[in-house]
């Protein structure tokens, strides 16, 4: 009987892919392709990148039509103005965290809504958006968004009107995409800082639209319990 009460292991068994990653990494270090220090420096660098520069890019484009034109025609050049150099800034001094450096900024209009996916696996504009959310990499999102975009978007809480065209961007070659959403009403006279705050990561992937008052730094909503404990 005593065995039945043994504590469950704190960490689950390691997955096949984790074993594979460790094996390839250790082989690469042994072969001298990179050092353990390089690997650590790279991993730490990757933890520091996030979606703030992309939010800033959108805010600037809302305020400056000339900059918007640049963003839509040359995303890599436009990224320089928000502090992201796709080509030179990597700690390894070559390549980018997503291998390729062709950023396309796709602009929504009141009659056109973009949403980004990589049906192959997980192409994502990492230098300007950081690591992709877990759901972006799931087969569930990848296989359904291309075929049933309206249904999937409604699961994110975004209901797109019938007369608005949805354009799914399947990013599976060398371009990486961010969405430049329509500037929402109620933001007249806002500063760049205020505008950047409402451009969340999900708005940049295209599964949400910016709303005044909805930011990344909002307090979590607290709701009263539906069936409160009676004491």
């Amino acid at each position, binding site marked *: 009987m005593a065995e039945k009460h043994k504590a469950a292991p704190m960490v689950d068994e390691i997955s096949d892919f984790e074993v594979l990653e460790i094996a390839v990494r250790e082989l690469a270090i042994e072969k001298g392709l990179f050092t353990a220090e390089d690997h650590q420096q790279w991993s730490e660098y990757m933890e520091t990148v996030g979606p703030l520069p992309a939010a800033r890019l959108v805010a600037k484009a809302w305020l400056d039509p000339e900059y918007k034109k640049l963003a839509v025609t040359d995303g890599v050049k436009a990224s320089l103005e928000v502090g992201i150099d796709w080509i030179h800034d990597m700690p390894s001094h070559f390549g980018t965290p997503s291998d*390729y450096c062709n950023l396309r900024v796709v602009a929504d209009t009141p009659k056109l809504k973009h949403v980004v996916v990589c*049906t192959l696996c997980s192409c994502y504009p990492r230098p300007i958006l950081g690591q992709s959310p877990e759901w972006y990499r799931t087969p569930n999102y990848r296989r359904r968004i*291309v075929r049933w975009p309206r249904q999937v978007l409604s699961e994110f809480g975004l209901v797109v009107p019938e007369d608005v065209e949805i354009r799914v*961007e399947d990013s599976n070659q060398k371009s990486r995409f961010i969405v430049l959403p329509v500037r929402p009403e109620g933001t007249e006279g806002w500063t760049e800082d205020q505008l950047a705050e409402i451009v969340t990561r999900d708005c940049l992937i295209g599964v949400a639209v910016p709303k005044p008052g909805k930011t990344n730094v909002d307090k979590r909503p607290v709701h009263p319990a539906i069936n409160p404990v009676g004491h």
Partner: protein
Amino acid sequence: MSKTHYDREHHIKKATNVGDPQCFRGEAGPAKFKVGDRVRVKDLPSLFYSRTMFYTRGAECTVAELVYESPPAEDEAWDNCENPEWFYSVIFKQKDLWPEYPDAYANDTLETELSERWLELV
């Protein structure tokens, strides 16, 4: 054909401080298609590696933009950078990809990129 010394770093040397696909600019020659062309995705065999989605094969689409030049994924997977091609951004009507797509949303589209070898004029 066999190389006595294989330069494992040829891509890094070429792309450093230039970027990929930027480092292949000007290497693909004249483009076969232009913006606005109606094209069809060929259903070529892809035995080892491809990035051409099966859902696009055989479907018709419109060239929206000539995006960059690059070796196609089928070559690059084997480290062959010798024959860069034009890449096209193409737009499909969702109706042309998924027969059951609702008529109410006939305007919905899907955009993706394909290399020249995968496209033919309709």
